[in-house]
């Protein structure tokens, strides 16, 4: 009888351990991601960004079916590019960002956030050499933002960057910024209501929209 109890306990313990272990695996993904997402949002220097981006790359190599690690790796590289001064190095980071966002795209081709990030990639690439890249990359980035908005009209990031591109174009041609500001207003509205079932969904970009509010007054 005693032996039976022990066996039962053993089985229960083992079962619990196994169940807990497999849950832990999923939890571990969510927890690790959560922690590093916070880090990538707050990282200031290229070194800090490199470290957290490396982490996302590591997670990505272990989690082959998840788009989020590649998404944040790409985001990290873009942030590194924005902090780098040397044009050639900026491009090198953007190449890595592009590779990562493409991998995310392979996993989730219809994820609005991924397409919006792709557009953001082009937008930053444009800023490296606006004179010669302007025409080509403004078209590419606006096409991506348009596609991201079509996939999810609620995506505030696609909206705010579209608003920025529209604003830049309007300013360049000295025409009305009405359209750009309407897009911005919509983006601000979506930022306040944006909810995703995915706890790891991107949540950045609101500051960009808030900052742009001044220009639209």
């Amino acid at each position, binding site marked *: 009888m005693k032996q039976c109890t022990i066996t039962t306990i053993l089985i229960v313990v083992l079962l619990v351990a196994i169940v807990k272990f497999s849950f832990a695996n999923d939890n571990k993904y969510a927890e690790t991601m959560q922690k590093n997402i916070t880090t990538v949002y707050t990282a200031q220097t290229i*070194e800090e960004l490199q470290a957290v981006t490396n982490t996302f790359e590591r997670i990505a190599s272990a989690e082959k079916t998840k788009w989020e690690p590649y998404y944040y790796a790409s985001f990290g590289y873009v942030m590194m590019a924005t902090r780098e001064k040397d044009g050639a190095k900026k491009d090198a980071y953007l190449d890595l960002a592009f590779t990562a966002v493409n991998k995310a795209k392979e996993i989730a081709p219809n994820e609005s956030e991924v397409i919006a990030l792709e557009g953001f990639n082009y937008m930053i690439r444009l800023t490296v050499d606006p*004179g010669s890249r302007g025409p080509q990359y403004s078209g590419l980035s606006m096409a991506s933002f348009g596609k991201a908005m079509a996939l999810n009209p609620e995506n505030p990031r696609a909206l705010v960057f579209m608003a920025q591109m529209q604003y830049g*174009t309007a300013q360049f041609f000295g025409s009305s910024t009405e359209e750009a500001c309407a897009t911005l207003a919509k983006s601000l509205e979506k930022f306040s209501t944006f909810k995703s079932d995915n706890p790891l969904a991107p949540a950045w970009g609101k500051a960009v929209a808030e900052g742009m509010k001044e220009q639209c007054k």
Partner: protein
Amino acid sequence: MKTLFTVVLSGIISLGIAQTKISGKIMDAQGESIPGANISLEQTYDGASSDVEGKFQFTTTETGNKILVVTFVGHKGFKQNVELNGKPIFIEVKLEEEISQLEAVEITAGSFTASDASRRTVFKAIDIATTAGATADIAGALNTLPGTQKNGESGRLFVRGGDGNETRTFIDGNVVLDAYNPSAPNTPSRGRFLPFMFKGTSFSTGGYSAEYGQALSSALVLNSKDDGGGSRTDIGLLSVGGDVAHTQSWDRGSASAKVQYTNLQPYMGLISQRVDWKSAPVSIEASGALRQHVGKDGMFKVYGNFNNSNFALYEHSISDYNQKFLYDLKNNYRYLNSIYQSSLSEKWSMRSGLSYTYLQNDALVDQTNIVETQQGIHAKTVFDGSITDKFEIKSGAEIIQRNYSQDFNLNDGTSHSLAFSELIAASFVEADLYTSNNFVMRGGARMEYNNLINQFSVDPRASLAYKMGKKGQFSFAYGKFRQTAKNELVRVNHQLNPEKAEHFILSYQLVNNKRTFRAETYYKKYSSLVKYVQGDANVLDNSGDGFAKGFELFWRDNGTINNIDYWISYSYLDTKRNYLNYPYEAIPTFASKHNLSVVAKYFIQPIRSQLGVTYSITSGRPYNDPNSDKFNGGKTPTYSDLSFNWSYLPKPYLIIYFSCTNVLGRNNIFGYNYSTTPDTNGIYASRAITQAAPRFIFLGIFITLSKDKSMNQLPNL
């Protein structure tokens, strides 16, 4: 039983507790520490980034055999098996440098590439369209680069003492027979292909790859775009005509079609010309392109161009102006090019192309009708292999078949004809070997068989490049080149050997952020040039020869003055040849000793305009004066030209473009024509070869209609 319980339980617990500490240092091949490298255990989250000293440390709860992976940008990945059993692991890793496109040394001797893809290019695709004086003509823009000798009356590319026909144009690797539109006498001809079609241009002034044959001096390699750039309709209203184009894009491809009509009649009525036109040039052109992505990374492209143009003018006798005869030309041109490219495996890729050219010049000269017809087919397949990241190989085979005929139909009903048909079969192989990111060697050979002379030939090519530090690099290039003599010579004697050239080029390039400096020196030896035997144009052999040597300087800067981008190029040329009717070695009439070009572009944001200025100055060129004893003894005055252009974007979908060549209205003289017979005093009468009009003024309005109103024709650049 209790013991078993404890053992199992403690096993479970220890599963959670057993930790292995992994630490170490990451360095490059020279032992310098690498910060920011990514260290990880494969298939797990565990790992770390190296710090400023290259050191790292992390602990893992994983056990057993795992693979430790180290990655860092620009370096080869490192992998090692580790056994995780709680004992600390210390590991020192030296990462080997990866040969990357970004960092690796590049063979630049004799070559200028323009592309948006590569950030290191000295010349950008958009430069071709925005260079003043070029009016969006590819050759016009490239004529501001070192290595070219400006021949204002021709418009073609004359490279390093070479004649205009020694530069060959290739589209997606396939040869183009006659890449220029016909032009009136002494008026620069424009290229048949607009720069907007191409994503990349590579202009080589010597020592080029074994892939390109049948070019003695220069290869102009144009790579067409892969994407249509969105559905839209483009309308162009030009001072000399108009065009309409439509592009339809879909998910993985696009198709576009364009019709263009050009008529110089109204323009020439407005601005007086030194040409006695019967009817000014009129042309109609239709072109179309289809681009489709196939499979994972395959690409299929077809491009076609059909052009009909004609003009008629009266040529006046030099000795007696009242004596004139009619010259009436109808030109018919068709070009079709298709290419398929795809990867075959991780290491190998292939491209296969086919081009077809048909051109006919139907001319009425005085009373005689001369019809010149040429047809050519070029089929080519190339395999590219990256065997390792340090060893690349390129190999291919091609066939160029050409049929040429010239028919004389005299007004007395008699006619005679000269024709030939040439088949060239060639294969080539070329290998690149990198010893590091700082040194590369390229060696190759091109084998050709020519059916007209029933001869096999092998031409070696070699080059190397060495990079010193981050910014400067030396390159050297050598090669033997051959090209079938001009049609008008081969039609007289089918047994003529190809003309040959041997190039030696040494180049130094320094790129510092937004500034580029390049210096290049070369020696070119010509042999087997076609020569008239004892001055008889109907008896030809290959006894001619010649040489060209010189040096060139190039400076480009778009970082010093805000919004101003400029470049300066200077070429010094010393060349002589003994060919055709030359009695002895002499400087050819197309060669000028000094060529200087200054190109500047200035962007003015408040008026949304780009202004461009190009100033070119070329020292005098020789001409032959039959009244003098010395052959090619005359020398024209210095040529100079100041051109201006203005591109204005008033609305996102609208571009207004204005350009004017030779703003100062200088009367440039390119040489002199002499009457064929001396007058009663024994003197040959002369007439200067000049521009048809001092200036060429062009105004164009380009409108783009699309769903997305911000689209304009600029992205086509």
